[in-house]
């Protein structure tokens, strides 16, 4: 809360001090667009007052009769995106964990799969989105038909699975030799060792991975919504309101804040999960 307030103060302070037209280096007289802008413009057009943004949130979206307040529209869109992102996160976590288990179980799989897991993250999202949309639209069996939100889920999970796969693998491999020897001396099998030793031991590695996955899922959802053309989510709303930037400069900021809120909720959810798993975060001290 203090952070948000500080940000708002900083915003207004710069708006007060900074030159209205920004600060250009090497601009030629009378030639628009020349020179390099080193400081952003502070005009109301580019940087609306924070109170204007807040005020805009309560006003209706459009001047049409019966239009909902902008804030409500943003919240609804954020909720839709949250659902999609959560699903993407879940799919990503399941896939990531499955991959980690596979790599744990078979040394050869680690060598075969891990490079591809890393490679997968170098493919730009923008290139991927139309591809997945295209593949998806060809899928059709019976009553099932591919919806555009499913493409968004896939893309979100594509970004989310990576930290989970890597983090879970490290966590599952974290028990030291003495613990593994101990389990062996108990004649415990692979699965018993997994559930009694490796899984609990992986929690400290897993929590940051899940947090990263949540952030990735949110970013993935927002970006994928735009490139897939899924309407109703916050990503699309950002694009739609951006058009209004020149006439209604405070408007695009509302969905951006909505996206930030989305990220905060996602992070809060993982923090809740972490609190729930806190007994497993104890560390052994060697006295």
């Amino acid at each position, binding site marked *: 809360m203090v952070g948000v307030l500080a940000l708002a103060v900083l915003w207004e302070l710069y708006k007060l001090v900074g030159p209205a037209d920004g600060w250009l280096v090497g601009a030629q007289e009378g030639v628009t667009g020349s020179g390099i802008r080193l400081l952003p413009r502070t005009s109301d057009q580019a940087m609306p007052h924070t109170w204007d943004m807040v005020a805009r949130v309560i006003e209706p979206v459009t001047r049409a009769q019966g239009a909902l307040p902008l804030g409500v529209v943003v919240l609804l869109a954020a909720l839709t995106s949250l659902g999609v992102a959560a699903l993407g996160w879940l799919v990503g976590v399941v896939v990531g964990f499955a991959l980690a288990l596979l790599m744990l179980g078979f040394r050869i799989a680690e060598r075969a799969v891990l490079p591809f897991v890393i490679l997968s993250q170098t493919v730009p999202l923008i290139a991927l989105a139309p591809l997945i949309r295209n593949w998806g639209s060809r899928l059709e069996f019976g009553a099932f038909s591919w919806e555009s939100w499913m493409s968004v889920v896939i893309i979100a999970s594509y970004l989310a699975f990576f930290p989970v796969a890597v983090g879970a693998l490290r966590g599952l491999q974290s028990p030291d030799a*003495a613990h593994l020897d101990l389990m062996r001396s108990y*004649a415990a099998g692979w699965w018993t060792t997994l559930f009694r030793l490796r899984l609990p031991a992986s929690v400290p590695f897993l929590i940051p991975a899940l947090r990263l996955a949540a952030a990735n899922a949110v970013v993935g959802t927002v970006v994928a919504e735009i490139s897939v053309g899924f309407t109703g989510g916050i990503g699309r709303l950002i694009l739609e309101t951006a058009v209004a930037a020149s006439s209604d400069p405070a408007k695009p900021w509302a969905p951006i804040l909505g996206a930030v809120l989305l990220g905060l909720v996602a992070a809060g959810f993982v923090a809740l999960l972490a609190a729930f798993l806190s007994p497993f975060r*104890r560390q052994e001290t060697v006295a």
Partner: protein
Amino acid sequence: MSSPTPSTPAPEPTPPDTTSGATATAVADATTEAVVARGVERVFAGAKGAEVVALTGIELTVHAGEFVSLIGPSGCGKSTLLRLIADLDEPTAGEIRVFGRTAKQARIDQSYGIAFQQAGLLPWRSVAANIELPLQLHGADAATRRARVAELLDLVGLADFAKHYPDQLSGGMQQRVAIARSLAEQPRLLLMDEPFGALDEMTRERMQTELLRIRAETGAAVVFVTHSIPEAVYLSDRVVVMSPRPGRITDEIDVRLGDAADRGEDLREDAAFFAGVTAVREALHGAESAPAAGAARGVDVR
């Protein structure tokens, strides 16, 4: 995997004095001996095809209820030998039998309890939950587990700490929990790999006396790896002296300073204790000065 709690009979009553401690050469019934190692060899493959002989020609018998220490400098293979007995590693030649069964079968039957230098407690489990881990893994029911855990907590003097977590305990207390855990299934053989190696001297001496008491109460045989001469002499019935490059047994010294239950702190100032220390020290130094045949590179294979 989840074979029911070992069906082996209750610990044999083994009065330490009547067992054949001094007559190690006597041919005893193989099934009554805790550990029998015959011609055991362990060779590790080193870099570029080089071979490191960690152990060679090991002949060792540990009688039921006997306390045997393995002592020697780093790299003499004493820990390797313990791991072979525990079936955490396999010999490249020779045979190890534990209570007449193969080492592997003995491990599957849970014939031994084991404790390492690091207590190795699971940090997310309370003291009680750590002790009951082996019982839980082998399907003992909750009531049995609770009763056994209470018993063991009393035995190691940690009754008030059942709900504590390992990170709330001192090193000595953690090690006591580890010992309690190793005793959970009433094994007739206890394997200990420098369990007090990481403790300070005061705690260490106190723990040694505790171990003697526990051992007297349980009547279990103990194979104890250490590199402390006084520790070996104070605890053991027999001290097995080992030498590195290649790892082998060079001497066995009977110390047996009286019944385990009767040994107390004042024994540390007894003439017999010093005589034992001297004997072991001389055996160790004699072994070191002797030229080692076919000396391999000094690799610490602890």
